[in-house]
């Protein structure tokens, strides 16, 4: 397997020709797509991967400078596309990966035919009239809080701490086995994510995009979704009745239905109020 595919733990399956690449958000790994992919694997070539430091990616490939902004993560997406020779793909990005997909599509538009952006936010911190939903202190609070789960031994983070080379079995035994992250990289990713500001990039997007907006999403509130829709040229906006930040997990049917409608219909979907 090539270095890139190994580094990002890339999985390719499905019986279709059109590539559909899924990018997980902050705090998760490719497992978060488990309820969505079955609906598409007959018709698409499914590409899953883990961001660096997450899941089964190669944490050793992490370099804080290289991943100092979302562009570093977009580089990885493009590297995967190049490696697999993907063009006209459907890019499905959750949360921060929605913006990562936006950045990738600006740089190499030919790779992407459609963008499905689930719970996207171009900026998490309020700025003048712009409402991102968070204050800077909130993000500091998060970064500080993360440590609580880096040391709680049976928590999400712990498996990675414990997964030392001498005792690989330890990591496997621990209870929360999904969404493993390297604590330091996770913290770095959190900082890069929540301090990012990609509002200026939105008008540059030429790719057709769908914005899936959840109800009561504390991470990406409705105002943010609306802002995205207004500033992303030709984007479509669907308000889901699913609550929370992860409709792909909490309401997979509704998410799949919205995606299908968008992918099937070449004409813009009318925004639902």
């Amino acid at each position: 397997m090539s270095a890139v595919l190994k580094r990002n733990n890339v999985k390719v399956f499905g019986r279709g020709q059109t590539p559909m690449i899924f990018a997980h958000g902050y705090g998760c790994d490719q497992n978060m797509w488990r309820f969505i992919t079955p609906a598409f694997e007959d018709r698409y070539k499914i590409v899953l991967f883990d961001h660096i430091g997450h899941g089964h990616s190669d944490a050793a490939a992490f370099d804080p400078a290289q991943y100092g902004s979302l562009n570093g993560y977009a580089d990885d997406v493009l590297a995967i596309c190049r490696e697999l020779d993907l063009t006209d793909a459907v890019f499905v990005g959750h949360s921060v990966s929605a913006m990562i997909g936006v950045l990738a599509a600006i740089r190499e538009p030919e790779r992407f035919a459609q963008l499905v952006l689930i719970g996207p936010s171009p900026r998490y911190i309020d700025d003048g009239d712009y409402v991102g939903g968070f204050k800077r202190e909130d993000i500091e609070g998060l970064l500080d809080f993360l440590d609580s789960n880096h040391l709680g031994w049976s928590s999400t983070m712990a498996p990675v701490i414990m997964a030392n080379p001498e005792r690989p079995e330890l990591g496997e035994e621990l209870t929360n086995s999904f969404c493993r992250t390297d604590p330091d990289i996770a913290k770095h990713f959190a900082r890069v994510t929540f301090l990012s500001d990609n509002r200026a990039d939105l008008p540059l997007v030429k790719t057709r995009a769908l914005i899936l907006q959840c109800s009561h999403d504390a991470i990406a509130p409705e105002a943010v979704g609306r802002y995205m829709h207004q500033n992303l040229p030709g984007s479509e906006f669907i308000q889901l009745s699913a609550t929370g930040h992860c409709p792909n997990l909490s309401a997979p049917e509704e998410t799949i239905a919205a995606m299908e409608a968008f992918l099937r219909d070449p004409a813009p979907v009318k925004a639902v109020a």
Partner: protein
Amino acid sequence: MKMDQGSLIETAEELYESAPCGYLSTLPDGTIIRANQTFLTWIGMDRQDLVGHTCFQDLLSVGAKIFYDTHLTPLLRMQGFVNEIAVDLTCTDGRVLPVLANMVQKGDANGRPMVHRITLFNATDRRKYERELLLARQKAEQATEELKRLNETLEERVTEEVAERLKAEEALRQAQKMEAIGQLTGGIAHDFNNLLTIIVGNIELLQRRLPEGSDRLQRAATHAMEATRRAATLTQRLLAFSRRQPLDPKPIDVNKLVAGMSDLLRRTLGEVVVLETVLGGGLWRSQADPNQLENAILNLAVNARDAMPDGGKLTIETANARLDEAYVEVLAEPVPPGQYVLVAVSDTGSGMDKATMERVFEPFFTTKEVGKGTGLGLSQVYGFVRQSNGHVRIYSELGEGTTIKVYLPRLIGSDEEPAEMPAKNPAMVRGMGETILVVEDEPDLRTYTTEALRDLGYRVLEAGDGQGALDIVAEHPEIDLLFTDVVLAGGMNGRALSDEVSRRRPGLPVLYTTGYTQNAIVHHGRLDPGMHLIGKPFTYAELASKVRRMLDGDHL
């Protein structure tokens, strides 16, 4: 009393409500539909305000809430449960309660999530402990990192350190050596001077008293005098090196001094060496003993000449200079940073190798053949410059030439005019019967001085110690000048004597003499302002001139 068995056994209700953990049931969106009393007590809310109105995630701190949305919920959806995830509850009174959450997701027949069962453990102590562990781990990591870095650079640093040490030790050794030699030579030179003074005096006496026509004896006396003068020059240089020569520092314009030396220098250098002087404009004034500075420049010029037997060029330059902290820091001897007047003497001669350069300031170090060099020229330069709070630096390149730089401290804040050059040949000036009190504890020296002064036409009173001198002063109001050695036997030194005499006879001029300066009159080798001194050995002519000028009130 008969107990009802049932009342002894806790009910499930009791257990639920008062268990040492919080129990909650929520809808998949987080809405709390049931909570036990323990949880209500923790959070500080009434059941009716909480149940049905509040989402579990809304009770969390902001950080924990983000974590709940990004990590906990996805995990719960994927696994169906989560174990011991840390979250922070925000209580109604503002307190933050760290808890560990276990959650199970219950679904309907189709696996659709219906309800979450949440168990919360108070984790205050545990979290504190974990924080400490985390800090300890970070510290340990930092220490390891630091250690690794130290290790990596260890060899390099040791080498550096050792080199530094060696250099410092070498500098110290050099300084100590110079100091020791200085003390030794200073002591010998001092004794020698006294002897020479007597010899000079007696030869002069002989010369004056030899009958007419005894030409051979006159010539012998002249030779003896010449040799004695050379000996005196040597002791003078030794004293200079030991930094114990009495200096008479004055404000000087170095440019004027160098210009005034050009005739002397041309004669010294001879035909084959070209002299060039480059005098810096706007040169600061300096403070030094002008005679000694002339000596130093002359010594340097002679060395340069000797290094250019086949001819060459001698350049004397002056300039304003600044010695910065970085420069003085690495010097073996303490030199304060600041402004200096530079005199640089350069030649196009043979140059020196490194080994020679390291030793040139040592007295008696010479590479010249026996009889040609005494090895005291640069010793004088070094001693004089150091005694004047200056700095000397040698640059030399074998086969190319040598530059010796003398830095003298800039004189700041004095409007005194630069000293005139001392008269080269003081005219013989005679006494007019004035009374001079000579105080000298060394009998031979006293005899010489007294005789010389009488010979010059003065009336002389003499004393061997301070007390004797005071007795004479009391009896002889006609005394016009006190001439005293600085160091006196018998408990009262020349300075104390002169203070006492000045008290009794205010305005009476005092002329000191000494071969040595470590005493009351000369602070750090310098005359106190307003005091007058004639260094030993002094000649008849010098004595004549100095005494005359003192009496005339012409105290230059």
